[in-house]
């Protein structure tokens, strides 16, 4: 176990934690963590799911209590027994998932919990909004905001509190490119004012862009730490993986695929329009993995869910092997042979309290494979077990509750459910979002296997590397329309990134 090698005594640090231990019941989540945060620096904190980052932050914020250890703010020993105490010490955490009040306005949301007069707060708030340069209507109800806008409101809350220590838990996961740039500008401004910022992220590129020091957490301890300048990207990846990780953490080898582009497309969207996208023309060929890149809000998910029967079609057609499946209900779309894995696994994907088997076969209830009236349990179990085995999903048994599995394994089950319906086309929406590096490799391996079965896959992803790695062809969506298509040799991160921002030109120069 390596300690952060900066300061041994909590002398000059803004915030210090020493030897924090925390267990939930018999589950030890933090096993002796020590961190220093100096004034005017951005400390990146990275680690896989379950490493303990969020727990540590919640302890600092007084949301959880810790079993042993010490916390110092400004060299003073503190006991953050409640959030109120943490807030009074000018420590503020912007949570990963926005925790706004849906029925209150933006303005009310930001000013909740302050002990000042309403008029004072209004002027302060306006100043903060102007400073940050974001355009936000303060009178809008929070339940009408997009996730990105909700994030912004949370960040504004932190700024309003003039915190000395600001904790940002994956703040950019839902932000668009220009919003991220604006955020970084704000962070740099706060840093220059002497505020200490702990920046938690899954995006390694951001570490190099914004942070001066980095801590890598793994399995409840700090595995590595140091100045960002001393690390390369591979160093970070190595630090994230457990010591004996197989090379599954590295991207799976892609088999060379030759797609017959002269054959009829298996899925075709013709002038397809709906809420959030317009005049989409798209062809997906048999056995192809087509990447669909674009920034958050480009309309990819909306297009996919509309195909899937979740929203009204405003125009155009969807053809599956020539058959018109436009506007069909979800049940009929699945029966026809198209299935969809949502990007929000928690909300739209998993039945947390039910077993692995029930989760795997939930989409089969429409057909007859697991029975007409009575459930054919053995068939159900057989199907489930086959997917569990094929995907190497870590379960104690097919009757284990899905909520007990890790994110990566949950995702495998959901993918299994989707393929169990024997679809011709599968649309995957951000399949590796929120999954740690080790499981990611597993999911890629699974996808490669499934490609061998001849299923065509539409891969919606914001991870450009992923698209480069896996796709046979790629299209980008920008502001609700398909704006570019790339053949295999033209797929690279720069092109995809540029096209996603509407800045790609044929001759290769940026706008």
């Amino acid at each position, binding site marked *: 176990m390596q300690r952060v090698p900066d300061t041994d005594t909590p002398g000059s640090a803004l915030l210090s934690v020493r030897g924090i231990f925390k267990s939930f019941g018999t589950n030890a989540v933090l096993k002796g963590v020590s961190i220093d945060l100096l004034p005017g620096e951005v400390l990146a904190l990275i680690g896989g799911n379950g490493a303990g980052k969020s727990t540590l932050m919640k302890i600092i914020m007084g949301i959880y209590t810790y079993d042993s250890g010490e916390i110092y703010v400004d060299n003073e020993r503190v006991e953050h027994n409640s959030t109120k105490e943490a807030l009074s010490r000018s420590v503020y955490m912007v949570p990963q998932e926005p925790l706004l009040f849906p029925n209150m306005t933006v303005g009310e949301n930001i000013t909740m919990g302050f002990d000042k007069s309403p008029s004072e707060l209004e002027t302060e708030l306006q100043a903060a909004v102007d400073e940050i340069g974001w355009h936000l209507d303060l009178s809008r109800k929070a339940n009408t*905001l997009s996730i990105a806008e909700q994030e912004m409101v949370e960040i504004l809350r932190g700024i309003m509190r003039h915190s000395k220590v600001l904790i940002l838990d994956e703040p950019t996961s839902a932000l668009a490119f220009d919003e991220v740039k604006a955020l970084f500008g704000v962070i740099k401004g706060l840093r220059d004012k002497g505020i200490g910022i702990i920046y938690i992220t899954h995006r390694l590129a951001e570490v190099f862009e914004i942070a001066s020091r980095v801590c890598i957490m793994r399995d409840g301890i700090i595995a590595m730490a140091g100045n960002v300048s001393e690390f390369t990207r591979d160093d970070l990846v190595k630090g994230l993986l457990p010591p004996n990780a197989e090379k599954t953490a590295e991207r799976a080898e892609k088999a060379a695929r030759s797609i017959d582009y002269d054959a009829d497309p298996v899925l075709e969207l013709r002038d397809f329009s709906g809420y959030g996208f317009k005049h989409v023309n798209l062809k997906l060929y048999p056995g192809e993995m087509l990447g669909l890149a674009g920034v958050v809000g480009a309309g990819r998910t909306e297009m996919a869910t509309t195909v899937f029967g979740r929203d009204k079609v405003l125009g155009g057609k969807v053809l599956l092997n020539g058959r018109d499946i436009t506007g069909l209900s*979800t049940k009929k779309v699945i029966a026809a042979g198209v299935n969809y894995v949502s990007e*929000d696994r928690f*909300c739209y994907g998993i039945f947390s309290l039910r077993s692995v088997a029930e989760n795997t076969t939930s989409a089969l209830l429409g057909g007859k494979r697991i*029975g007409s009236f009575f459930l054919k349990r053995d068939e159900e179990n057989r199907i489930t077990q086959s997917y569990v085995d094929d995907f190497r999903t870590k379960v104690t048994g097919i009757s284990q509750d899905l909520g007990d599995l890790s994110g990566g394994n949950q995702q495998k089950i959901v993918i299994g459910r989707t393929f169990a319906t024997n679809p011709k086309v599968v649309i995957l929406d951000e399949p590796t979002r929120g999954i740690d590096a080790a499981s990611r490799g597993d999911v890629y391996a699974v996808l490669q296997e499934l490609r061998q079965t001849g299923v065509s896959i539409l891969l919606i992803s914001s991870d450009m590397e992923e698209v480069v790695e896996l796709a046979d062809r790629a299209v980008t969506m920008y502001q609700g329309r398909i704006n570019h298509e790339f053949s295999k040799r033209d797929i690279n991160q720069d092109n995809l990134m540029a096209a996603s921002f509407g800045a790609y030109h044929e001759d290769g120069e940026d706008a």
Partner: protein
Amino acid sequence: MPEDRTKTVEATQTKAAKPGASLLSRITAGQGSWNMLLMALIIIEFVVFGAANPKFLRPQLFFTSLNDSLPVFIISIAVTFVMITGGIDIQVASLVGLTSIIIGVAWQDWGFSIWGAILLAIVVVVACGAFSGFLIAYCRVQAMVVTLGGSFLYSGLALIVSTMSSTESYQGISGFPDAFKFLGGYKFFDVFPLQMAIYLLLLVIAFILLNKSKYGRKVILSGTNPRAAEYSGINTRLTIMSTYMLSAFAAAIAGILLTSYLGTAKSDLGSDLTMDIITAVVLGGTLVTGGRGSVIGVALASFAIGLVRFGMPLCFKVSTQYLDIPIGILLIVIIVGRSAASNTSVGTRLHSLFAGKVTSKA
């Protein structure tokens, strides 16, 4: 990006507010151990009541007294389906009275045959359930409020129907044909009531429906995560609506049997059943938030409650009106105990001792 903000914010709220979700699932996954606890409770009741007054164990008296709890037995099974979908049904009690009075008035004043009257009552009451279910499932109005309004509406309708009869409402309609009274009155070997047998049959059907049929699976999944169910191609709205029709049907059956047993049709039959029904469903292991429930558990729980209602007055001379106290306390203890088990570390440690056993989903 999920565009439905309210849902995302809600889901986040649920996620953040239930850190022990997987712990809770472990606790209630122990439905098998929960059922055993209920069995133990029933055995204790038998022992205590039987010791206090051996008449308790006399079959004739025993079964006759249990008849009083039969409506709760029957209806609570169906309300379990409703609560598994995350809803609640507090209008069932008024549907019992509506069934009864329709039978009475249709047969006596409108010239229906007794079986025609019964059929009419069932159709009307299930339609009421469908109506409420439609509002809940398709118009997305909260179940509590719809069934609250429904309880006013349907009990009011029952009263209005009773005014359409030549008999005064407070008197109740009687004089039913023997064939009808047979349903509620006949006893096998003079001991075991036909009503009970009907109940047991319904119990078996409900068990099969919930655990062995695709419909039951759809009900469970619609309650566990309706959005994920939709994305799996399940028609959650139709499924949820159907559960209210089931509970209405159960109320109708209870109303028929009760009317037959008492020999009188009255519009306010069953008006005080709601608390016992909800208590039975919750005591039986059903999660108020949906996704988990057990037919066997509810049957055992309603039985345990029925025993208290029968045993206390007989064996301890406790007047029936006081019985709300022990049953209320039972409900409180169960619900607090369950919350404590999932929300405190002492509880989870204690429970992991139990949960290691059977994980059958009865």
